[in-house]
């Protein structure tokens, strides 16, 4: 691929997903784009590039971005985050949201849904002894295909059982000929929306905890700052932002600071946290 053509894809990816790709990855680009070239009926990648330079179909852009970004995930990826959510953050929120009796969670960049279901499951388990509390969860992604998969909530045996404990599996999933289906009980209060962290989106309101794990690690510094600004805007004054282990970037927005003892959890620098209500016993795994 010529450098000029490469720049077309680099720009699209940067605009749409915030991911900045390195020219050394041209080979990867070609292998990932080939199925899209075939799907849209272009004779070569070059002819598809020409179309993208002209007036591109938004659907084509969607497919290109989808092909170039990673959507790999699995149940309880980032296990320490679920421990922190269940043992620390939910118990803290129980003290702070006594009137509302509900927690709002957001899985930002939910891919095929495993993270969203694990968040819902963890929150429910943590609220077992607190009757009448509700869990509301929004899961968003830029890929319609991923969202459809996520919302369906059907996983094959291998995916379902690998990181899930058998007790969780039989409690929150039911067996079907397709594999293991998320039970309706867990689906209650969970919704899926197509949304891009870099675009002006509808206002989803504020959340008590947001998981945005291994999503913005490949973003350019500018895109990352924009995404963080968006996430901070949607966080309650005492909300928590959970990151993944691949998120090794430095936050230079100044919007967040690390929750002491939990390196992957960020809190708002100018937030309003009742730190004395935060459980201190034990330590995360």
């Amino acid at each position, binding site marked *: 691929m010529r450098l000029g053509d490469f720049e077309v894809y680099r720009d699209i990816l940067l605009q749409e997903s915030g991911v900045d790709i390195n020219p050394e990855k041209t080979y990867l680009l070609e292998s990932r784009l080939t199925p899209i070239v075939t799907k849209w009926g272009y004779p070569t990648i070059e002819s598809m590039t020409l179309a993208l330079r002209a007036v591109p179909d938004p659907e084509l852009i969607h497919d290109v971005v989808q092909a170039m970004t990673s959507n790999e995930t699995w149940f309880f990826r980032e*296990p320490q985050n679920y421990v922190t959510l269940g043992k620390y953050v939910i118990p803290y929120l129980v003290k702070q949201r006594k009137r509302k009796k509900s927690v709002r969670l957001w899985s930002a960049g939910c891919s095929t849904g495993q993270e969203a279901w694990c968040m819902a499951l963890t929150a429910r388990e943590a609220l077992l002894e607190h009757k009448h509390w509700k869990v509301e969860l929004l899961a968003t992604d830029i890929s319609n295909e991923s969202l459809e998969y996520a919302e369906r909530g059907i996983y094959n*045996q*291998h995916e379902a*059982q*690998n*990181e899930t*404990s*058998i*007790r969780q599996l*039989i409690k929150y999933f*039911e*067996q079907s000929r397709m594999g293991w289906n998320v039970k309706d009980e867990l689906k209650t209060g969970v919704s899926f929306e197509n949304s891009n962290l870099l675009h002006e989106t509808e206002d989803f309101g504020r959340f008590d905890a947001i998981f945005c794990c291994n999503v913005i690690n490949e973003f350019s510094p500018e895109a990352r700052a924009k995404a963080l600004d968006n996430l901070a805007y949607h966080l309650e004054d005492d909300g928590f932002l959970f990151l993944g282990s691949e998120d090794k970037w430095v936050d230079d927005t100044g919007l967040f600071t690390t929750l002491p003892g939990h390196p992957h959890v960020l809190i708002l620098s100018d937030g309003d946290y009742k730190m004395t209500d935060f459980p201190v016993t034990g330590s995360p*795994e």
Partner: protein
Amino acid sequence: MPSCLIIDDSRLVRQVSRRIVEDLGFTCGEAEDGKHAYEVCEEFMPDLIIVDWNMPVMSGLEFVEKLRAMEGGDHPKVIFCTTEDNLGHIERALRAGATEYIMKPFNRDMIQSKLIQIGMMRNEVA
């Protein structure tokens, strides 16, 4: 080094499981059915047991029920590893005292993640 007993009537499955579990840092013993496994446990109670369901002489389920009634039989963590994949079987296994349950086919990653979940291994980045 923690110890593990692998119970399966297939020599091939025992071999594969043994290689995985030894590689993950366990010493390993083998038994080809529940009765033999019970005798092994009378001599030496392992820390971990990986057991198949369907075996001649004594099934995995019967073995686990008997194991949990033995002196010291509440110590081992027990993972069923079987082709029986329906809810009824899973519930019976848990009632009998199984710690975890793997539906075959299995692989190294699956065994490793179950061992981490039940606290038999630390979660280390390979």
